[in-house]
């Protein structure tokens, strides 16, 4: 069935997008689910080629609604690195330190820089793909990512 393959292809992707953009605090998974539920209920009304931007827009709007209610909370929102093992203690120390710097630097990015940059670096998405999701030009995506990279490198050096 078309819906199931569409779901499997884009569900994680939508969730990741919401996660990078809004952090983990406001339940991005719930919103991703709701967005797909909306699509499921309105299958007949949404054209297949619009389905992807439909769920991304709905997911994003739902998060934004949530953000309105939690404005103050969001300012303290942080992205947590995963815990990790199997390394030598010194390396771990160094690595831990580096990760902390990196985390702080990511926090200092603007929301739009962070979203584009993390989708690009972690999800391995190309500029064009990100541009389609965010509804902006690839050139703008390229600029955001490059600027984010510059900021991160500088901050890590300074810290």
């Amino acid at each position, binding site marked *: 069935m078309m819906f199931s393959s569409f779901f499997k292809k884009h569900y994680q992707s939508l969730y*990741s997008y919401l996660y990078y953009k809004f952090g983990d605090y406001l339940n991005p998974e719930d919103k991703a689910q709701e967005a797909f539920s909306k699509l499921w209920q309105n299958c007949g009304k949404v054209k297949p080629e619009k389905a992807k931007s439909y769920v991304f827009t709905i997911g994003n709007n739902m998060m934004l609604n949530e953000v309105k209610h939690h404005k103050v909370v969001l300012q303290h929102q942080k992205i947590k690195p*995963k815990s*990790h093992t199997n390394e030598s203690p010194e390396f771990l120390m160094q690595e831990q330190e*580096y990760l902390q710097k990196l985390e702080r630097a990511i926090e200092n990015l603007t929301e739009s820089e962070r979203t584009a940059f993390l989708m690009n670096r972690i999800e391995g998405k*190309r500029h064009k793909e990100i541009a389609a999701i965010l509804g902006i030009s690839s050139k703008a995506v390229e600029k955001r990512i490059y600027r984010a990279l510059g900021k991160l490198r500088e901050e890590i050096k300074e810290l």
Partner: protein
Amino acid sequence: MRREDLIQKWLDHALTPEEFEAFKQLEDYEELTKMQSALQYFKAPEVDVDAAYNTVTTTRKDTSKPTSWFKPLLKIAAILVIGFGTYLYATLPTLTTHETIAANKTLVKLPDTSEVALNAVSSLSFDEDAWEEKREVNLDGEAYFKVAKGKTFNVITDDGIVTVLGTEFNVKQRDDLFEVFCYEGSVKVTYNDTSVVLKPGQRYLILDGKEFRNEEENRKEPTWIHNESSFKSLPLQEVIQEFERQYNVTVKANNIDTSQIVTGSFTHSDIDAALQAITMPLKLKYQKKQNSIILKRD
């Protein structure tokens, strides 16, 4: 290729194998790959796609309500209709209307025992519910009022407003004629923002937009309520129109100067006598054909 371009291409995951070799030679290479691998720690958690799929596809029945937008809308619509209806019922004036056709007269009693005699082809309407607050009637045509004493009484016509306290007067408002006779008490006539007070026996007349005022006969009542129409210094045309209203006929007076001023009267009960009363003084002849009458010069 420039260093910056290589980094840009790397960021777009678009390096060719040769370019990648060149990229490796950059002094930034180590730093960038370190960051790249460290960034993986910030990866969004894996979600359970299958579980989510099941939730989404099974919640459909609970959440899909095809008519859900319609029901609240119906409720709102019902409230609006009821509210609007009540509002209309409570505020709209409940007009009582009396009308007369040609060759017809009627007597109307107003809620305060005031009496109105309505001449042929006239209409009178008033708001019975609001009578206590404002004594007000709308008149189109001719009527004779005997107003009971009390608050201000207004007769509203298309041409002007007649205001009185307690009195007897006649109002005639026809196409280009607006005439008020005062028989008793005093009457205030408002026409085009100017007001005139009439005493008993005075007449106020607007003919083709021109204003006339004069002393009149000392009758106690207009003659028409006793089945006789009388005219003083009015165009023949007005007499003919009144004749048409009283006998429900059409009068053709093509070759006659209907603007000549006449004084006289005709009865409502005998058409031949009435026609003679009109034609003889003017030396005219008349011809009857069913419902139309032709006036000719002698």
